[in-house]
């Protein structure tokens, strides 16, 4: 059972109990906010978040031009198209992004694609830094419990990203058993969506759409995945882990 299913089961149990229906509205946003790590806890109209570093800051893995187009064009387009959907559908008015993601099966494909695109990229930018960082002891322990060594985890993460056929993402999630696990999703789906089979709370994720790496790495996605470790912000990933396992 993953955390998403257990969450849904829990909420449907609450919903079936008239006395606590009032409490549901209070509990639900708190749960979602916690689950969403560093994605914006905002409702529409959504805005493009600023990058937390200069576009040329991540040159060790990602060139400035890729950062400019990826953030300024691709991410902006997800924001714009999500806002078009929000403007069309009264049910989306005032909804937090995290909440939309958690119930994305209720909406048209354009909401799934663009809310996912906005969530995933907002999360992604914060996972990177030009500064050297280290992971917390407890995250290191969790990774070793699941994969033996950090090196082995990285190898399997790279392999999973390489094998994701077509556009998508590779993630490290915290499962409902509070273990860490590598999962992949197609396109702009993410592990918090109620449409994914293998869910969990993402603490790390890499974009394997070709637009994320093609200008520097061309067809060599595996090389991109390997270089990417040079810019991962392990401090943020460790914080994500600490929050996700609460």
């Amino acid at each position: 059972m993953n955390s998403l299913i257990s969450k849904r089961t829990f909420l449907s149990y609450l919903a079936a109990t008239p006395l606590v229906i009032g409490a549901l509205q209070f509990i639900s946003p708190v749960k979602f906010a916690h689950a969403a790590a560093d994605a914006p806890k905002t409702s529409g109209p959504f805005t493009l978040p600023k990058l937390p570093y200069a576009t040329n800051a991540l040159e060790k893995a990602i060139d400035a031009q890729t950062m400019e187009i990826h953030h300024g064009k691709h991410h902006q387009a997800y924001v714009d198209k999500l806002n078009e959907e929000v403007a069309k559908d009264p049910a989306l008015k005032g909804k937090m992004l995290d909440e939309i993601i958690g119930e994305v099966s209720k909406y048209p494909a354009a909401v799934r694609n663009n809310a996912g695109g906005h969530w995933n990229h907002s999360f992604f930018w914060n996972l990177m830094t030009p500064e050297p960082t280290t992971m917390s002891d407890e995250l290191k322990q969790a990774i070793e419990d699941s994969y033996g060594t950090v090196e082995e985890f990285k190898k399997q993460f790279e392999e999973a990203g390489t094998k994701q056929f077509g556009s998508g993402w590779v993630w490290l999630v915290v499962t409902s058993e509070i273990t860490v696990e590598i999962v992949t999703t197609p396109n702009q789906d993410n592990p918090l969506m109620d449409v994914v089979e293998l869910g969990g709370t993402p603490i790390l994720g890499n974009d394997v759409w070709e637009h994320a790496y093609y200008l520097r790495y061309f067809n060599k996605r595996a090389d991109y995945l390997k270089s990417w470790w040079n810019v991962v912000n392990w401090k943020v990933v460790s914080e994500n882990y600490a929050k996700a396992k609460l």
Partner: protein
Amino acid sequence: MAFTLPELPYAYDALGPYMSKETLEFHHDKHHQAYVTKANELIAGTGLENLSLEEAMVAAFKDKSKAGLFNQLGQHFNHIHFWHWMKKGGGGNKLPGKLEAQITKDLEGFEGFKKKFIEAGTTQFGSGWAWLAMDNASGKLEIVKTPNGENPVVLGKTALLGVDVWEHSYYIDYRNARPKYLEAFVDSLINWDYVAELYEKGPMKIAA
């Protein structure tokens, strides 16, 4: 029989400036080659080795345990034809007579085709293809879009024309501007003679 990478039917620089030499080198020599190599690896021991590409592709599509193999076979099939769907000095609205008549009837003419085809390519979210296809049952022409390595053949249709909208087919030349790539493909690259040849052959029905 092992699958092999076909040569491009034109020079690598023949499609410029609409599709660059660099794009064709990566797309043909690296991406298409990788589909061929992986198809040969994954088909070994499946019992599909002696089927035609089309038969193996449809059989792998129907067997969910062979999704990985299907991806490679689908992309091999798609790219074999993709290279022929383009030519130097191609594109535009000069279509062979019979094909033009049916496009007029089923798709509101060339302008209708162009609008629907570009829209399908633009709205195919993520990697995939946009197609002009013939429905095998009705014989009607239609515009179809498919994700990743899928194609009209596995949907019981005949692929008459397809455009690759994986980012690798346009990112070097157009960056994120997929609609501009699709416009250039329709206006300046389509090899209508090859489309007409497939149209004249009629429905491609694959037993599996």
